């Protein structure tokens, strides 16, 4: 097995294996780097950019950048935190994120990330207010892409874990969205038991399971109990 090495993350010495990402190494050391598109068990894709860090002065995504021996990595600096706030605000403003009426409120990673980063009031950006049809064709599942943050977790889970490819990106630029493999969800072989549909997979309220809305009382919801990242790995459970 190849030699382990160390690098510096905000002044703390972190041990990494060759090829290991900064994120994975930090997770293993119990140091949390904020993230939305990356989640345990799925291949990282580096698209939300919330995990940006500076490595030797260059901004990189911690989830896809392999750690390097003697790298100096900055994460919780005012500059990086500023970028993260801007990125999370962009995601809020790109979609329709109405927390008070959203089923995912309290277990939503976008909402929790906003709280963690201190975003508690409306921001300077314009709202893009998409108007996309909600797909409620499936007996067990609702897909509301107006609440999607394009993290691609459902796509990767369906493809790499369920082996089904129910979801895929369609369109490009600001018109990019998650499409389904058919005319509607009912037309696909998606199942409520798929990993793609699991509550842990969609970080927001885009994929909703029918018949079990608002199942946890306010005050007892996941992120009511502890802020996101409290367990040092950003996992929901």
């Amino acid at each position, binding site marked *: 097995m190849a030699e382990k090495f160390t690098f510096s993350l905000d002044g703390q010495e972190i041990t990494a294996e060759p090829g290991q990402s900064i994120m994975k190494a930090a997770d293993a050391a119990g140091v949390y780097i904020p993230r939305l598109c990356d989640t345990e068990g799925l291949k990282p894709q580096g698209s939300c950019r919330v995990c940006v860090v500076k490595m030797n002065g260059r901004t990189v*995504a911690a989830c896809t950048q392999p750690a390097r021996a003697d790298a100096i990595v900055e994460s919780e600096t005012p500059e990086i935190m500023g970028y993260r706030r801007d*990125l999370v605000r*962009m995601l809020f403003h790109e979609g329709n994120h109405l927390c008070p009426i959203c089923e995912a409120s309290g277990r939503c990673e976008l909402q929790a990330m906003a709280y963690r980063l201190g975003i508690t009031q409306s921001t300077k950006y314009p709202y893009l207010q998409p108007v996309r049809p909600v797909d409620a064709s499936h007996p067990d599942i609702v897909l509301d892409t107006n609440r999607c943050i394009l993290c691609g977790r459902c796509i990767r889970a369906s493809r790499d874990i369920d082996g089904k490819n129910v979801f895929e990106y369609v*369109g490009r*630029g600001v018109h990019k969205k998650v499409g389904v493999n058919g005319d509607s969800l009912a037309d696909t072989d998606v199942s409520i038991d798929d990993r793609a549909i699991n509550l842990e997979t969609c970080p927001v309220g885009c994929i909703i399971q029918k018949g079990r809305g608002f199942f946890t009382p306010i005050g007892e919801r996941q992120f009511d109990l502890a802020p996101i990242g409290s367990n040092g790995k950003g996992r929901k459970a």
Partner: protein
Amino acid sequence: MPESPLSKHAKAEQAVMAICERFGNDRTRLLDILLEVQARFRCVEPSLMECIARQIGTYRVEVEGMVSFYAFFSDSPRGQVVIRLCDDIIDRHAGTEEIAQVFSRILGIGFGETSPDGRFTLEYTPCIGMSDQAPAALINERVVTCLTPARAEEIALGLKQGLGPGELDLPEGDGNNLNPLIGSMVRNNIRLRGEVLLSDVPADAGLHKALRRPPDQVREEVERAGLLGLGGAGFPAGRKWRMAADTPAERRFVICNADEGEPGTFKDRVLLTERADLMIEGMTIAAYAVKAREGIIYLRAEYAYLRRYLDTVLQRRRDQGLLGTDADGPGGFDIRIQMGAGAYICGEESALISSCEGLRGEPKNRPPFPAESGYLGYPTIVGNVETFCCAARILDRGAAWFRSWGTKASAGTKLLSVSGDCERPGVYELPFGISVRELLDLAVAPDAAAVQVGGASGQMINMSQFDRRICQEDLPTGGSVMVFSAKRNILEIVEYFLDFFIEESCGYCTPCRVGNVFLKRRIGKIRQGLCQPEDLDYLRELGKTVAETSRCGLGHTSPNPVLSTIANFPLVYAALLKINRDGREASFNIQSALEESRYLAKRRSMIYDPTYEGD
């Protein structure tokens, strides 16, 4: 007897299956398959997506992902003749709008529409590489340039009367554009021939010399010459070659990036027309230097009119034993042409590779770099058309000869595409280090008030900066130099560039997908006089976030038009900003703010409307 819908559908499926089979039902050739299906059916509708997916062993939604990514594909039928009018900023200044009205009037449809009889589609398209002969348009694959309302009318009437795009009576181009295999009215507009590329070059002199030396020496020669990638990114070409050669692999690839899409650039068009052999010679040398046996020329869809000519050149070189898979030496290397399908982002090398692999043209995560793991996972050299041409010349004349031009960091000459408000738009081959002022003098641009160097992603400089030099040390460029006179509106140009990036962003990462939209909205507000000085801080901060956190070069550079104009044209902004006095927001206009609620309430406001007299 009318054909039943069922048999029509079955026939369509059969045709699609035949197309897939011709590409070996290979998932990685999906771009080619879709190009043919689109050409045949004028769309790739969901039932055909389903059929393709089944045939090549993928999913319909993946095919849909491809169709919805590339501008030249559509999921509903386009007209038999698709007219794509270039609405680049240079073309707009040259009169695109007037031309658009002529086409609309005669064909009876608006832009973005297809005529009910299915004959015509009108569309706008970003820069088609003809800024030196704007306004220009594509009629299917045929290029028409220097459009005037009269010429547009003639063309539209001809098409309406049933002439095919190839049957239109158009003036002749110049140089090799007259070659029957090209047969285009495009003009090269070569204004200045430098010694490296546009003067007479001996055929295959570089290749023959290269073959007499061991591959590592060939790589070293290119490294010693200090050749940088000439598409815009400026990465040392020799280092790429070395990385590819040093990575152990069973296959290696050489890809020529002929996806010239940066607004205002058209020098690769000229090289493809006039120096195709030199470019292929350079690719062959690269293949020899890194032991690659397979090559690809990625040709942008807008340059499809050059395809037949390039195919012929490739075949001739195979016949000459300079290409082909069944011989030793240079003949051990062969090249295929991969057509693009309308996506600026595919000029980014890893996005280009994705596209060649039949995927959405999204950049890949780095590391690994393409030279280590590129096309199909094999070490791949991606180089610009001009870079390969220079490599061939370097092997002929030597690194020292090449270095005798240019600056310390930018060796050699550069083809500059000059367009806009000047008397002599066209291609200039000049040594790196030339000042903008010298270039403007050559192009006869006495009224230049602002110059955009490096295309939409470059820098806008003002008159006091015209002594700045074009090179890595100062103003880098892939070749685009757009000249604007004082009568042009700087913020209209900036807003146009942002529209371009919004349209062309792949959407993979948050800052580029969303941030550019926000930049554009605020520029629009400034233009309406609805902003105050603090809004410049907003633009600077947002621009920095987009540039710093984006995943690829597109987002790293898309805020440049905003940031460089704020820095270099502060008065343009100052004139439109309102300063707050008495603690009131001067940019706030109560009347316009009330418009929407008035509209919704279907009545005027009693309090704020001075003319209101009650119902």
